C-alpha cells in the first residue's frame, strides 16, 4: 500500500513541477483542457458508476458556466463569489429534477430520458434568453481591468491555469476516493442492484441517491465555470446540451467507469483525438471528431464495456471486480 502512496506522490510532484520546466504554451493549453474535462468526467462517473446514468450533466455544466459569466458581466460579481452561486444554482436544479425522480422511483430508461430532456431544456433557455446570454452565438466574460486579474479569476498565464486545473482535478479524484470509501458506496451499490432490497435493509434510497447526485452536479458546475474562465468564451453547444452530456458519457465509458483514473484516461483520449483530427483535417474536421466519437462509443459499449483502463487493470489483477454493469 505504501508503494502506491509513494507512486501517487511522485506522480503528483512531477505534474506540479511540469510547467516550471516545460513551457510550450500549446501543450500546456491541451493539458489544462484535459485536466478540466477530466474533472467534469470524474464528476459524471461518481453518479454513473452506480447506474445513475444522467444525460443532464450538460445542463449542470451550462448553468455553472453561464451563471458565473452573467453575474460577472451584468452585476460585476467576482467569480470568486459567482462560482459558488452558480454551483448552488446547479445543485438546486439537480434537486428539483432528481427529487421527484428518486422519490417516485423513476429509474433506468425513464431517468435517462428525464435528464436528457433537462440538458435539452437548459440549452433552450440559454438560446431563448439571447438578450442576456448572446444565444447560440456564444458569450464572452468581460475582460477585467489590468491588475484586477485575480479578482476576476482571469489569468493570461498558462502556468497559473495549469496549476488551478491540476488542483481541481486532484480535488475531483479525492472526492471520488472519498465516495469510494464511504458507506454511501455500499448503499449505492445495493440500490443499483435492487432498490426494494436496499430499502428493506435500511438504506434510505432517496437520500443516498440525492446526495450522490448533488455532489456530482456541484462538481460539474464548477468544471463549467472553470472552463468558462479559462476559455473566456462559452457557447450553448460547447458547455450545455445533449452533445456535451453524451460526450461525458462517451469519455467515461472509453476510459473506464469503475476506476478512479478512468475518466482521466477518457479525457486524454477524447481531447487528443479531437486535436489530432483538428490538426490533421483543419477546418474540414468539423463534424469528423464527433463521427469518430460516435463510432468508437458504439464499438466500446459492444466490445469493451469496462473501458480501456478498466479492462487493462482487470487483466493485470485477474481477480473479479465488484462491478455490476447496471
Amino acid at each position, binding site marked *: 500500500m505504501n508503494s502506491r502512496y509513494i507512486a501517487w506522490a511522485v506522480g503528483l510532484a512531477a505534474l506540479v513541477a511540469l510547467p516550471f520546466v516545460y513551457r510550450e504554451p500549446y501543450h500546456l493549453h491541451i493539458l489544462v483542457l484535459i485536466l478540466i474535462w477530466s474533472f467534469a468526467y470524474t464528476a459524471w462517473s461518481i453518479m454513473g458508476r452506480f*447506474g445513475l*446514468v444522467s*444525460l443532464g450533466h450538460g445542463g449542470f455544466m451550462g448553468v455553472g458556466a453561464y451563471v458565473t459569466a452573467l453575474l460577472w458581466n451584468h452585476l460585476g460579481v467576482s467569480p470568486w463569489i459567482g462560482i459558488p452561486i452558480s454551483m448552488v444554482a446547479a445543485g438546486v436544479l439537480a434537486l*428539483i*429534477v432528481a427529487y*421527484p*425522480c428518486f*422519490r*417516485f*422511483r*423513476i429509474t*433506468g*430508461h*425513464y431517468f*435517462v*430520458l*428525464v435528464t*436528457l*430532456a*433537462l440538458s*435539452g*431544456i437548459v*440549452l*433552450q*433557455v440559454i*438560446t*431563448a434568453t439571447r438578450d442576456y446570454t448572446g444565444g447560440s452565438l456564444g458569450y464572452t466574460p468581460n475582460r477585467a481591468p489590468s491588475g484586477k486579474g485575480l479578482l476576476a479569476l482571469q489569468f493570461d498565464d498558462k502556468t497559473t491555469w495549469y496549476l488551478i486545473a491540476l488542483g481541481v482535478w486532484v480535488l475531483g479524484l479525492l472526492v471520488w476516493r472519498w465516495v469510494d470509501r464511504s458507506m454511501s458506496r455500499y448503499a449505492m451499490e445495493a440500490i443499483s442492484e435492487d432498490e426494494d432490497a436496499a430499502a428493506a435493509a435500511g438504506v434510505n434510497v432517496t437520500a443516498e441517491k440525492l446526495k450522490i447526485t448533488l455532489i456530482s452536479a456541484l462538481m460539474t458546475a464548477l468544471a463549467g465555470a472553470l472552463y468558462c474562465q479559462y476559455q473566456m468564451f462559452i457557447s450553448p453547444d460547447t458547455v450545455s*446540451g*445533449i*452533445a456535451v452530456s*453524451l460526450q461525458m*458519457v*462517451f469519455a467515461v*465509458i472509453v476510459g473506464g467507469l469503475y476506476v478512479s483514473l478512468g475518466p482521466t484516461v477518457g479525457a486524454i483520449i477524447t481531447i487528443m483525438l479531437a486535436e489530432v483530427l483538428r490538426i490533421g483535417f483543419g477546418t474540414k474536421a*468539423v*463534424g*469528423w*471528431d*464527433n*463521427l469518430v*466519437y*460516435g*463510432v*468508437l*462509443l*458504439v464499438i466500446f*459499449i*459492444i466490445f469493451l*464495456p469496462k473501458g480501456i483502463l478498466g479492462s487493462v487493470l482487470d487483466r493485470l489483477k485477474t481477480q473479479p471486480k465488484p462491478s455490476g*454493469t*447496471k
Partner: protein
Amino acid sequence: MQGFLDIFDIYLLEAVVNGILLGGVLALLALGLNLIFGVIDVTWICYAELVMIGMYGMYYMVQVFGLPYWVAAPFAILLVAALGAALHYIVIAPLLTAPPINQLLATGGVLFILQSFATVAFGIDFRNLGIRLPVLAIGEMHFSYSRLLAFAAALIGMLAIYFFMKRTYTGTAIRAVAQDRQIMSLMGVDTKRIYIITSALGGALAGLAACLLVLQYDVHPFVGLSFGPITFLICVLGGLGNFVGGFIAAFVFAQIISLGGLFSDLEWGYVLAFAFFIVMMFIRPAGLFARRS
C-alpha cells in the same frame, strides 16, 4: 380594452388549433418510440436524428433530383425504415443481453454518428424544400395547409399502425412479444424477425414524421434537438410503451408549447412544457396512465 380582448381571443383560438395540429406530429413520433420500447425494451435516443436524416432525404429528392413531393415521400419513409432496421441489426441486436443502459448509450453513440454525418455530408446550412403551401383563412384565423396536412397524415399513419397491429398475423405477433418475450419465442414466434419488423416500423413512422416536418421547418444537422427532448418527455409522461398515454400526452404538450409560444418565444413554450412535466412527475410519477404491472 374590448378590442384588445377580441384580438386576444382569436389569437388564443388560433394557438389552440395550432397546438392540436402540432400534437398530431408529436403523437406520431411518440408512437414510434413507444412501439420500439414496448416490443424490444430499448429506447432509441437517436430517434429524432432518424427524422433529421429523413428530412435530408426529402430535401435531396425534391430539391436536387426534382422528384415531386408525393413520389419522394414513400422513398423517404422506406429509407428511414431501412435505417431503423439497420440500427437494430448492427447496434441493438449484439446488445440485447447487455444491461439496458448500455443499449441506450449505444444509441446515444448513433446520435453522435448521425449528427456529425449530416454535418460532414450536408454542411450546417439551413435548407428547405422551397414548397410554400397556401394558408387557410377562417375568419381572422390563419392556418397553414402544411400543418393541416401533417395532422391528417399523422392520424392516418397512426390508424394504419393500429389496424396493422390488430388485424394482421405479424401485428398480433408483435403485440404478443411486447407482452412476454420469453414465452413467445417458445411458442414458435421468430423474435429476431419480429424485432427487425418492429424496428423498421418505428423507422417508417420517423420517416413519415420527416416528410411532414420538412414542410414546416428548415432542415439542418441539429434539427433533431428541437423536437427530440420533447418527444422523450411525452413518452415518459404517457408511460413508456403505453400507446394511448403517449397519444394524449403529445396533445397536452403540444398545447402547452403552442400556448406558451403565444405569450413569448417558442423556446419558452418548451421550458414551460418541461416545468409542467416536473410538476406532473410529482402527481403521477409512473406516467399519466400508468399500466398496472
